[in-house]
């Protein structure tokens, strides 16, 4: 009788859980309605224009890929540097990666003008294009993530009937170092190429700089693990079960804090080089326009520096603060917000400044003003709903925090 009640309580739905699921369902319905609008009417329903052809959706792509970076960073630390203590968080990190990357791909399919041709980059190659390389890396890396995640699925009691499946899962788990290496290489490539997407555009003064790819990858390495750490705490609070030892999570927080400092260092020199003295013709004018038409300075200093860097660094690195899980969760969420603000500023500000390529043109082109339309927000809500639903179901039904334990018992 006891076993019966246990197995029943495991799959029962508490009112709170049901309310949460219906909230997520509502988000996804909003997303589906918006997607229907986009697919039937075209991208005209967005507020993007020929002056600002990229907007909120590209920001979501960039952010969710950066926030999924915990997967490759932590896998590399665990399996290549052989820090066994962190192994308990490996599966969660990979789950965060899968959620982030699939969200990015979903948004990307909405964003391209011809979703029916999404497969073209795989068939028609332009090896000069960073976007081509990114498409390949993202799909390859998603494959790596899914293989890395396979043991979690094969460990399900469901597959006990066919012992071949868990055995294959364990075999895959033994290949974890290879997968971690592949993941590391592919991620180093595309995480920085996402920055290069902007950094190589010589025509736009606000984007063109060699620091762009480096800032992108370092910020991703810093914030990805931090978000995974924050999620581990939140899961612990919601489910009431111990997930990952707090010592491990504190270590990750300290690592993220240090990585954020490295990021700050490069950001500082970048800022200094652009605004050191006099006027770098394009950039100075561009900054002037940006400050006139957008809250650029506020977004940078408050959103990126204070919320995204200063507060998380203090909470992650100072022992008095990082002993308290609440501070670590706040720090990781703030750091994530900082990343989103950074990717938004990078994407939109480069486009808002009008191109100035010849006499007369500066009076012809107005600064592009862009605020996302309702449909764009709808897609954002839908993607968020999808991401949270995937999380909820995985946490609920999959053995996410049992890495190592099952292997030693079996």
């Amino acid at each position, binding site marked *: 009788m006891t076993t019966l009640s246990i197995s029943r309580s495991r799959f029962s739905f508490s009112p709170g859980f049901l309310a949460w699921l219906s909230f997520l369902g509502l988000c996804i319905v909003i997303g589906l309605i918006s997607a229907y609008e986009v697919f039937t*009417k*075209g*991208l*005209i329903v*967005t507020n*993007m*224009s*020929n002056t600002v*052809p*990229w907007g909120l959706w590209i920001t979501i792509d960039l952010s969710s890929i950066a926030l999924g970076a915990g997967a490759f960073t932590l896998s590399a630390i665990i399996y290549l540097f*052989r820090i*066994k203590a962190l192994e308990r968080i490996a599966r969660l990190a990979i789950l965060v990666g899968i959620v982030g990357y699939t969200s990015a791909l979903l948004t990307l399919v909405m*964003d*391209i*003008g*011809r979703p029916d*041709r*999404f497969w*073209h*980059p*795989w*068939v*028609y*190659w*332009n090896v*000069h*294009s*960073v*976007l*081509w390389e990114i*498409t390949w890396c993202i799909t390859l890396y998603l494959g790596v993530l899914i293989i890395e995640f396979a043991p979690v699925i094969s460990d399900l009691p469901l597959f006990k009937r066919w012992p071949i499946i868990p055995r294959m899962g364990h075999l895959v788990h*033994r*290949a*974890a*170092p*290879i997968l971690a*290496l*592949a993941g590391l290489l592919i991620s180093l490539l595309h995480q920085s190429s996402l920055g290069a*997407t902007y950094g*190589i*555009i*010589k*025509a*736009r003064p606000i984007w063109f700089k060699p620091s762009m790819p480096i800032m992108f990858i370092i910020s991703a390495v810093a914030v990805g693990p931090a978000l995974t750490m924050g999620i581990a705490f939140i899961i612990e609070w919601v489910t009431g079960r111990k997930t990952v030892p707090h010592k491990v999570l504190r270590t990750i927080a300290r690592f993220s804090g240090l990585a954020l400092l490295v990021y700050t260092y490069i950001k500082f020199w970048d800022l200094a080089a652009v605004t050191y003295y006099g006027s770098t013709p394009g950039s100075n004018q561009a900054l002037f326009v940006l400050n006139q038409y957008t809250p650029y300075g506020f977004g940078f200093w408050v959103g990126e520096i204070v919320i995204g860097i200063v507060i998380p660094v203090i909470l992650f690195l100072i022992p008095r603060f990082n002993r308290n899980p609440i501070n670590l969760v706040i720090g990781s969420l703030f750091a994530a917000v900082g990343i989103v603000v950074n990717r938004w500023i990078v994407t939109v500000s480069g*486009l808002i400044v009008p*191109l100035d*390529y*010849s*006499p*007369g*043109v500066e*009076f*012809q*082109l107005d600064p592009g003003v862009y605020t996302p339309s309702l449909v764009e927000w709808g897609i954002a809500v839908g993607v968020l709903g999808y991401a949270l639903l995937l999380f909820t179901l995985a946490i609920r039904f999959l053995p996410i925090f049992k890495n190592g334990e099952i292997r*030693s018992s079996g």
Partner: protein
Amino acid sequence: MSKKKTRVKVNLTRRDFFTVAATAAGSAVAAQLVTTGSLSPFSQLKIAQVTGEETSRHAPGEYHWGMVINLEKCIGCEYCLRACSAVNDVAPDKPWNIVVEDRTESGRKFFFSRPCLHCQHAPCVEVCPVQATYVRDDGIVIMDYDRCIGCRYCEVACPFDARKFNWEEREDENAFVPTWGVPEVERRSRGVVEKCTFCVHRIDSALQKGLLPGEQVEATPACVNACPVGARTFGDMNNPDSTISHILNENPTLQLREELGTNGSVYYIPPREGI
């Protein structure tokens, strides 16, 4: 226990890593060959489709089509814009040609117009993830509307704002038809990027008929024909006897944003007193 595990992992790492790497590299090469490379059953069809059989008769690089725009002559009538919009059936809110007014330092009014510059090192071509846009042998930068996925990276990368995206399926009446010409190409579908083509359809069919673009009207871009003051000249810059070569030799000309090194095929003769 943990030591044992570690040993197994090390053994697997090296050999399997090489196997995986070799397999990945092999399949990458194979995929390239089979899809777009020499082994593809469609490669010949694709080449015929994008280059047109007419041009393949000529040696590659035989022509280099270019344009000279004389800002001293231009009167800002926008005839080029209208003829272009009619012939290429361009949407009114995103013309391929733009005409703007500016003043020289001494305050004299002049007009500046701009088609696509057809850069020989075109940023749009470099960044396109699917090679939907490319520089032809004859210097023309062209779009493959059947391949474009609509990511708009080319639009973001173009230094001259020469590319426009089709945000919706067009159902508008073209107000410039038939006064300024009749459409010679079909409308672009929703979700692809479009741009000025130097009226490539005229050039290709004219060469087949033995006409010379830049000399005969039916072989020359619509904007050049429509200009009432002869501010635009079109022709083969590789041919030293063509009109455009003479103009380029006899006048001081400039290209836009030369510092980027994109090397456009459109040259400007500045107003006599300078800009």
